[in-house]
């Protein structure tokens, strides 16, 4: 079942909340704050939350959005949950590599690969 949201499309696949971004560009401070709030709410919705962020639609990302993802990651860990990222395009993945955040986040090429990884714990 898909829930309407201003910036996010969220659907449940088994135990995993799969999040897609409605915006092609995650740039503006206000949008980033709003996305962060929505994701925080999702992360705190249940202990042990399993969250997959699918970046398929995202073509541009500001560094402030990286900060928002780091804060989310900490929050998910506090909830003993799991956060995975998938479908990050080559240019944006380069941003993760330059900032070494590819070492912080669990990143998969596709959503299916990420969902399989959740099953393996």
């Amino acid at each position, binding site marked *: 079942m898909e829930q309407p949201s201003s910036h996010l499309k969220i659907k449940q696949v088994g135990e995993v909340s799969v999040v897609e971004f409605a915006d092609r560009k995650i*740039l*503006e*401070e206000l949008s980033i704050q709003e996305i962060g709030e929505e994701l925080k709410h999702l992360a705190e919705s249940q202990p042990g939350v399993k969250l997959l962020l699918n970046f398929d639609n995202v073509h*541009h990302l*500001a*560094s*402030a959005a*990286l*900060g*928002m993802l*780091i*804060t989310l*990651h*900490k929050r998910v860990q506090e909830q003993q949950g799991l956060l995975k990222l998938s479908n990050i395009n080559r*240019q944006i993945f380069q*941003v993760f590599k*330059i*900032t*070494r*955040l590819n*070492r*912080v986040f669990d990143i998969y090429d596709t959503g299916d690969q990420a969902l399989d990884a959740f099953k393996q714990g």
Partner: protein
Amino acid sequence: MKAPPDFGVDDDALIDVTLPTDLHSVKEPEGRIMAALQRCGYDADTTFAIKLAFEEAVTNAAKHGNRNDRSKRIDVRYYVDPRRVVIMVRDEGCGFCPDKVPDPTADENLERPSGRGIMLIQSYMTKVCYRDNGKEVWMLKENPACGA
């Protein structure tokens, strides 16, 4: 606000734009720069790099320089030709020392939520030069397709 001599651009060739401290205002000059890049045949990766660096520089100017004070302005100067792009962003803040910004890629800083804009600019651009106590940043990107 003269370009560094080694950036290879005449001062008269630079286009001047003054922006209010409002991140929405970046779209208009960014659109012009992107259109010029397209006309000059820059590839997608180089265009991505320039766009990212410009947005990070304007964000830093608005947020950290002008501290979102809408009474302050952001000055932009830019130049695009098929060999190189030069962009300057200047704020009205108190300045900062770029060398003292903690390295966000250091293990102890990896999970800090901020401080990546400056290093992304540095990584993506060919040369970066801070002036006037960090209030003014000059960025040069050479077109890799030209072997400039």
